[in-house]
């Protein structure tokens, strides 16, 4: 039986209200058959300190990334992972996580590379659930393994590679990193480990819109009107634009991709997951330093 949608008024304004659920909705519906709740965090041990009862864990590093190649797991790996955590192709999946759902958005984006249909985010993520004093448990979730089919990953629709970025100049690019990373003062987030980029700065013509601007108080997504004033009025994006978002390794830009794609309904938004750790080390590609976007190179 399909799992109903959350009909909150706030969500109804978004282009795709069906991709979000509130903490209230989840508290009532989390045990429905056909629904699997997934926690996906930056910290690999956070789930173990206490998770929403019944939730399973998917880690971006150890589960979603291939352990050898810098890439995501392939169809076989994804099928194995989802079977292990008890998700079927027909399951409704609700993902939540720390840091205003960075990693939850990233996981959702990977689910979409494999075309999993019904994936939703918990608005506000882990922090909202905790702030409202809702139940967490350390009890190990009992999983009935499934037989998730092997689906070929589709890298052509919502994912951009470096060559796609080079061919994209002249179209909007959004850099969602912090201001100091954008200007080139630092190659990584303040207070974060340096995953390595040999140069600092941004991709020419990319506009700086730090990801967190899409998150309001308590980490929930801003209203549609607030998001439109940032991305449409201020940045100048419009329907029909082909947009590429990037950050350092593609996690914060998954959050922005989610906002642009589902909340504002801009089709044609891709996430460049190679992001600055790739671009900032590539030989010969153009880079701009400073606070101005700079001009797109003429092809």
């Amino acid at each position: 039986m399909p799992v109903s949608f959350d009909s909150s008024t706030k969500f109804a304004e978004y282009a795709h209200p069906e991709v979000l659920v509130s903490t209230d909705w989840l508290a009532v519906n989390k045990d429905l058959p056909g629904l699997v709740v997934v926690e996906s965090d930056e910290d690999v041990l956070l789930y173990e300190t206490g998770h929403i009862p019944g939730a399973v864990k998917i880690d971006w590093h150890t589960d979603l990334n291939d352990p050898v190649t810098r890439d995501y797991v392939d169809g076989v790996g994804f099928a194995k992972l989802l079977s292990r955590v008890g998700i079927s192709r027909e399951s409704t999946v609700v993902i939540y996580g720390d840091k205003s759902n960075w990693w939850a958005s990233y996981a959702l984006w990977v689910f979409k590379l494999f075309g999993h249909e019904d994936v939703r985010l918990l608005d506000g993520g882990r922090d909202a659930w905790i702030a409202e004093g809702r139940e967490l448990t350390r009890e190990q979730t009992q999983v009935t393994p499934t037989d998730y089919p092997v689906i070929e990953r589709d890298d052509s629709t919502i994912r951009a590679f470096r060559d796609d970025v080079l061919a994209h100049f002249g179209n909007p690019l959004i850099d969602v990193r912090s201001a100091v990373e954008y200007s080139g003062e630092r190659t990584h987030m303040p207070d974060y480990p340096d995953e390595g980029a040999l140069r600092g700065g941004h991709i020419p013509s990319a506009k700086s819109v730090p990801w967190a601007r899409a998150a309001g108080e308590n980490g929930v997504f801003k209203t549609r009107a607030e998001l439109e004033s940032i991305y449409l009025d201020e940045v100048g994006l419009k329907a029909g634009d082909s947009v590429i978002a990037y950050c350092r390794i593609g996690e914060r830009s998954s959050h922005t991709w989610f906002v642009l794609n589902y909340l504002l309904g801009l089709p044609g938004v891709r996430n460049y997951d190679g992001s600055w750790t790739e671009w900032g080390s590539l030989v010969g590609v153009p880079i701009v330093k400073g606070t101005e976007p700079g001009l797109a190179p003429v092809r």
Partner: protein
Amino acid sequence: MSSAKESIASLEEDFNALSVRDRLLLLLEFSDNLPELPARYAEHPDLLERVEECQSPVYLFVEVEDNSKVNLFFSAPPEAPTTRGFAGVLHEALDGHSVDEVLSVDEDFPNRLGLSEAVSPLRLSGMRAILRRIKRQIREKLV
């Protein structure tokens, strides 16, 4: 009291005897049991050194008692259990041992706990960074 070398050997043994999932749970135990800061540091966070290489904030302070014994103090928030766990393991392995012992600890020992698979090599590099900073503070504090 066993030597630092013996503590580390026994940690390596404990972690590696477990399944990958249980290694995480053991790390969680170290996170849960990380000793609180004593008042003299809790009230003076400025005395603590921040380990920048860790994904989440962790602060550390090293005391060298009588130019010979190492006392370690850590502070990391509960929302950063992996980092807290790393600090807890290092505390278990090194606290109370002699300067010579701690300085001679192999900086690669975090890689031998069987945690690479469980937490990923990138995250584990944070633990090596804490160890390097402990050694640096010791060297600075020797007179």
